[in-house]
């Protein structure tokens, strides 16, 4: 076995080349890790909005809350269904909500508007959604035009600050009285207001978009679903709330992963070629050394593995740098149009150990692939010829 320190020193001798090659690989690992972190961030942001113990009811056939509509009388029917948990006073735990989209102006853009989701919620919503906490101001008074906003919306749009107001429709303004957080879920990119405000402002009297209920246990979902979908006249469909939000994130998450994958494909060809060039140069440069090693009795396979190890080392340096840089992305938040709701949601890059490990492994793989042919050439060096040069 040739000591690893030999390879490490060899990499140091050719600093510029090592840095250039490692940087190429770092770039690939960075893009790969970042795109997967973003894809995961999208899934987590939307995934956190729903819980597996909650049932979620929409009109049959609707694929988003936006396109669903349920008449109010059906809400009580849904709440009375088997499997729905009741609170101490015997009241079923569930809420009917209505969503709409508002176009609000972004600050400092001279009139450029973007869409925000507006959710009309019943009075007892904060008792139902226990992960939602007011972090500033106070809850909105029921039956008024007061609203609370998710913390990620703060300052993103004109009027979205505590004490400020914005137009819900022509000549009807709503005032922000509080800011809430909900553990990074997509609710943090929403405005919550009284359900009747949305109904009257958008002509949706007597309607809700969806009904969420808390189940007695996760396993009660099938019972609940059967009760919802048994009567075809009702025209309802039930999902687990977590499954609904997972489906909402699918398109965006897939697109991000696909784009990242396509970029990584082209980048990795370049980086692998870079590694190959570097390793070929290293081999031809050290031909005499290799000849000496052969003469000393090191076997071909030892020399092959030594050069492969060197290539791997080179790639891992790059991979480590790339992965470390991608960790920096976890401080970045950015708003993106969510295709399912036609409104903006703020996502963040969500690092996970398996993403970083996978990216570094792929980086290492590029080193091995790029280093294989040069290593084979090195192992074929004839001791006599090499030392004669």
């Amino acid at each position: 076995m040739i000591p690893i320190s030999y390879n490490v020193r060899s990499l140091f001798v050719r600093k510029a080349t090592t840095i250039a090659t490692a940087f190429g690989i770092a770039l690939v690992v960075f893009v790969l890790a970042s795109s997967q972190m973003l894809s995961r961030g999208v899934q987590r942001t939307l995934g956190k909005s729903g819980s597996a113990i909650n049932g979620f009811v929409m009109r049959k056939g609707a694929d988003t809350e936006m396109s669903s509509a349920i008449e109010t009388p059906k809400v009580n029917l849904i709440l009375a269904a088997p499997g729905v948990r009741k609170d101490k006073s015997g009241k079923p735990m569930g809420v009917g909500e209505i969503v709409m989209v508002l176009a609000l102006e972004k600050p400092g853009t001279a009139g450029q508007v973007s869409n925000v989701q507006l959710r009309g919620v019943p009075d007892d919503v904060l008792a139902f959604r226990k992960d939602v906490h007011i972090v500033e101001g106070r809850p909105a008074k029921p039956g008024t035009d007061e609203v609370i906003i998710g913390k990620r919306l703060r300052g993103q749009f004109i009027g979205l600050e505590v004490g400020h107001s914005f137009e819900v429709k022509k000549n009807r303004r709503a005032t922000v009285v509080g800011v809430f957080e909900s553990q990074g879920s997509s609710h943090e990119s929403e405005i919550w207001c009284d359900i009747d405000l949305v109904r009257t402002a958008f002509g949706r009297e007597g309607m809700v978009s969806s009904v969420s209920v808390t189940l007695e246990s996760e396993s009660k979902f099938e019972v609940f679903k059967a009760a919802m979908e048994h009567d075809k006249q009702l025209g309802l469909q039930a999902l687990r709330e977590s499954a609904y939000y997972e489906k909402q994130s699918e398109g965006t998450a897939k697109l991000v992963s696909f784009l990242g994958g396509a970029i990584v494909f082209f980048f990795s060809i370049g980086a692998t070629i870079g590694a190959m060039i570097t390793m070929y140069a290293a081999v031809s440069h050290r031909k005499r050394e290799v000849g000496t090693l052969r003469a000393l009795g090191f076997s071909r396979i030892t020399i092959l593995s030594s050069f492969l190890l060197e290539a791997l080392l080179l790639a891992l340096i790059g991979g480590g740098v790339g992965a470390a840089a991608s960790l920096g992305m976890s401080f970045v938040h950015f708003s993106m149009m969510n295709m399912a709701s036609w409104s903006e949601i703020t996502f963040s890059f969500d690092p996970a150990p398996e993403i970083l490990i996978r990216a570094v492994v792929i980086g290492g793989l590029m080193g091995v692939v790029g280093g294989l042919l040069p290593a084979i050439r090195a192992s074929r060096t004839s001791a006599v010829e090499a030392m004669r040069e």
Partner: protein
Amino acid sequence: MNLASIAVKNTRRNLFRTVLTVVGVAVAMLAFLLLRTVLSSWTAGVEYSAKDRVATRHKVTFVMWLPKRYVDDVRAMDGVKAASWFNWFGGHIVGKEDQFFANIATDPKSFFDVYDEVALPADQKQHWLEDRRGAIVGSALARQFGWKVGDKVTLEGTIYPGLWEFNIDGVYTATRKSIDQSSFFFNWEYMNEGAPAPAKEQIGWIITKVPNPAQAAGLTKRIDQLFDVRDIQTLSMSERALNTSFLGMISTLLKAMEIVSVVILLIMMLILGNTIAMGVRERTHEYGVLRAIGFMPKHVSSFVLGEATCIGLFGGVAGVALAVPLINQGVGRFMEENFSGFFPYFRVATSDALIALGLSVVLALVAATIPAYQASKLHVVDALRRVG
């Protein structure tokens, strides 16, 4: 022997490395051209879009509806030649939920007044006008699903609940590239009858035709002013802007592509710079000899730069030679057939090809600057003393 021939000869010194580098540059240029072509054909699509049409939708999003009477209000305005209305149906074929296609409700009578480039055989057109459940489909879409005139198609509504059965009355083509051939248009009346109460007499957007394109901008403003005092405000825009809004994230996507196309160039420079630096290091001794026999530093650096230019040029030419047939015959055909509404002309623009060639040379020179400078600064004695 002049500089050019020395540069070319030098690239053959380590032929294998040169080939690898050229491949690296070529792949980078291929990726660069692919991205540039998406970007420039997107921009070029504006040229082909109809400029004599104005689209009007709900101020917030096309997902929210306008009252149908707005169509009559628009028709009554000065300078309006024709107007028709549309609803995004959002249906899918049961069992093929993931195969997305645009299915849109419209008024067949006024449809042809605004979309005069839609070509449909007279008998099919007549049939559609009379058939309440009738639909016409674009030729690309018909090919995709294997539909023929006379077929029955059932869609499940996501916005309008239930199963809806349609008769394919016609397969349309387009005489201009301003409408795509992968849409499914059907009779609005049929949808309106079966729609739930809040969705009745509600429309998604209005397309208005003006006698000449110069009047479009003025009308856009006047329509929004007309409805500004009403209960529901509108946002009018060019037809293309409306089409773009259907592709929710397109602007984010295009921006990402722009950034990536620049990063690709950076990778190319890394590969090239590495190769040149290696060559310089290996030939240090030789440059010492050159300097000793009277060549000036500028000669040495021009040898290095000349070699870099050659490799960059080879790579650029190879990249363009790969990209042009791949994009024009492969990817481009697919895009034009399936997304002609957005990419009416998906080809490598000559200017993009020239930019790619130019960049491969210029960036090669930039990448070689440091090695060339180092080579020119060598002291004769040091260089001669150095081994290897």
